[in-house]
């Protein structure tokens, strides 16, 4: 289960751009997750070894951040924010609705393998409360009543492409995030890109 050559190249690029191997760990794990959507322990170890680090802290990091998955996940990972602002705007109802629709198993995965339901803490998108993260996109405000519809859109888009236009009531809030705030984008906007030039 060796890393793909593209992943290796990407990790090397990340490593070269950062002064400390430890700093490269998080973006490298994210890059490695790109291969299959989650990080088997084998992969975590490989990434750590590539960077000359102990696998234990890599494992720690991979389990600490909710954007990294150490168990298989579906095509869409839905992370519903449960922190106070989202809660006050009804996140528990949203979660209930998602549960009812997806019937997730104990790992949070739906039977069709399309969805994984996770509960997370504030993602900094409180103006769109209640919100959830769908893979690398933020989606909100959500409405428990329109969750079936939202999921239907996602199912239709399962072929790929970005998720957009999922608002419960477009008139009720600002437009959904345009350019998706993705982790990998955030990394590329760091000094990393300069190294490429």
């Amino acid at each position, binding site marked *: 289960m060796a890393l793909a050559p593209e992943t290796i190249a990407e990790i090397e690029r990340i490593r070269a751009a950062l002064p400390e191997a430890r700093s490269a760990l998080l973006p490298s794990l994210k890059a490695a997750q790109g291969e299959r959507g989650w990080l088997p*322990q084998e992969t*975590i*170890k490989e990434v750590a070894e590539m960077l000359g680090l*102990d*696998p*234990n*802290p*890599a*494992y*720690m990091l991979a*389990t*600490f951040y909710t954007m990294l998955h150490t168990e298989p996940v579906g095509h869409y990972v839905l992370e519903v924010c449960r922190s106070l602002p989202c809660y006050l705007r009804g996140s528990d109802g949203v979660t209930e609705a998602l549960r009812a629709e997806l019937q997730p198993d104990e790992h949070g995965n739906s039977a069709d393998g399309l969805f994984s339901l996770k509960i997370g*803490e504030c993602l900094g998108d409180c103006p769109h409360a209640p919100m959830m993260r769908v893979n690398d996109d933020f989606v909100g405000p959500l409405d428990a009543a329109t969750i079936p519809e939202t999921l239907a859109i996602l199912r239709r888009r399962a072929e790929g492409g970005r998720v957009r236009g999922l608002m419960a009531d477009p008139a009720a809030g600002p437009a959904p995030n345009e350019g998706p705030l993705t982790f990998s984008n955030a990394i590329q906007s760091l000094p990393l890109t300069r190294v490429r030039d």
Partner: protein
Amino acid sequence: MVQEATKPAAPPNTVTLTIDEREITVPKGTLLVEAAKSAGIDIPVFCYEPRLAPVGACRMCLVEIEKMPRLQTACTTPVADGMIVRTNAEKSRAAQSDVLGMLLANHPLDCPVCDKGGECPLQDTTFNYGPGISKFIEPKRTFPKPIPLSPLIALDRERCIMCYRCVRFQREIPGDEALTVIDRGSHSEIAVTEGRDFDSPFSGNTIELCPVGALTSIPFRFRARPWDLTKVPSVCDKCSVGCNLNVEYRNNAVLRLTAHPNPPVDDGWLCDHGRFTYDYVNDKNRIDRPLIRRNGQLVPATWDEALDLAAQRFRDTADRAGNDAVGGVISARATNEELYLFGKLFRGALGSQAVDHYPRTGSAIGPFGVDALHGSIEALERMGTIVLLGVDPLKEQPVLNLRLRKAAKNGARLVVVSPEANDLDPVAAHALRVPHAALPTLAATWANLIVTEGLHDAEFIGGRTAGLDRARATLVDFTVERAASVIGLSAELIAAVGRALAAQGPSALLFRRELSGTIDHAQWFAALNDLSLLIGATKEDGVFGGLVTQNNSQGAIDLGIAPEGDASPFGGKAPSALYLLGVDPLGDGRAEALDGVDFLVVQELFLTDTARRADVVFPAVSWAEKEGTYTNLERRVQRIRPAVRPPGEARPDWRVIRDLGKRLAPNGFAFTSPTAVWQELAAAVPAYGQLSYGALGRGGQQWALPHIGDGNGGGRFTFRSGDLEGGAGR
């Protein structure tokens, strides 16, 4: 105000505060929890551990501080002048009870089947500060348990209270990542990566640090309740550090070893090798009676038969082939008392010089004329510079390695010079890969560089040393360029590190005594001698010495249990009658040691390959069964105490040597106890004579080096490379 003025002024750099209505003065920067402890006030803690950096993770230590709106954690709050603290008023008591309630919400309370029960801080703290009744009725969280983290340690996640002591210990003390935390918040768990063991050589310390039964010893699990064990304070015999430990036994079986903190030696830590190596004591296969060879077979015999036979044959051999034809080799792990008696048996009773210890420590006489470490283990913490030449303490003196890491943390610049990767490389200011063969050259080169550039302390060298000019003349050839070509490192690097060594501040030089390959050790020691003077390692505040490896190598050196010159029963001509105590040359691949031996006496715990060849076998006793003293690598003499009875008819080793002595000499072997042997030994060895026997059992005592002992910091040191024909390290 007037009253205030009459109070004696607090000494500078101290802070005066009030805790529970009591006024306390402590040094600035003291943590509240420590200030309270110094006044005998107990603040309950879980995550706080004085040897680790405070984190404030468990909230157990909440106290009320006047003028502060919320309760504060006493383990992270430093004292301030005029602070008024209450640890036992209603608010703090309520918080303590609430925190315990939360910690217990998911705690299984399986104390009756928990190894920690009876010595568990969670039990004790709950009893003292906790709620009598839980507020929770929800089901508790469960996990599969126990999870073996390694062959030595099992993890019970249900019991863990996430104080992080274990993970913090690994990160801060041995400096590894052998244990980690996964997930976050209330889901956090202690873990290791799948397929990997909790593989630190110091892992056992986490068992004792864990304030609950979450980390337990697999070899000890369910073997006994703590209150059923008897604890005997003793000293580890597995290496030259001499960490203090408790031998804990029940029904005459050693069941576990735990730390018995002696901070100047061990800081309260043990390595896993020391902590977990005790099964052999309880082994049913130990030799439990004397054996003698009859018709080619080793068969049981009485003590008298075996002792008579051995004594008779030793005497016959000496009469027939000369006294030196009877030789003896004793383990460097024997006690001082055994070493002394062994020496007396050969030199006194038999008149033989063929007596040695094994493994033999090559002599490394320091500039002060004594073969022992100058300074102390504890002094390493205060060094500005520490140079390690060819030593890797993690492998040979594990707990010393922790002290060196601590020194680095305190700001010491470590210069690590070794042939292979060294555990201390990551904390070193300079880590150089240099083969053994090039170490003498490197030491001489640095000495030359320092003296040429005038980087040494001229006052010390001028006032306290002699022979620099002659040494200079010899050292002058050792240019940085030459060293660079010999060693294969750049001249700039060699020079830069050499200059760094000369930086002022207390400095330490620790070196390997025996280098592999064809090395002229006289030249090696001459170069070390001179370098140590030039960097100030022999000053009162410095540390200098060749690290010994066995728990009593230093004792064997001090008592002179080695033949004159280099002759050795293992090196030169083998004696024809040989007595081996705790030495197994066949097992160590030194079969040639037995060539020409026609009468062999072996004293051993087990029937080793060598014992199988013997004519007489005496059962030996383990360190957990005997009394005596060991001298550690810093000249500290410490007492060991017997915990369990040896198997069968086995007798303490000192008695066996004594009984041979009684048969071979008309008098001089009437000792009735190891203490009696100590008294004679102390009279014979002046440095030991100055020690107080009582102190040896309470943390031990370092015997005094002559140059330190003269009161005014006085002896003179001599440069040595000038004395060598052809110069040092050439």
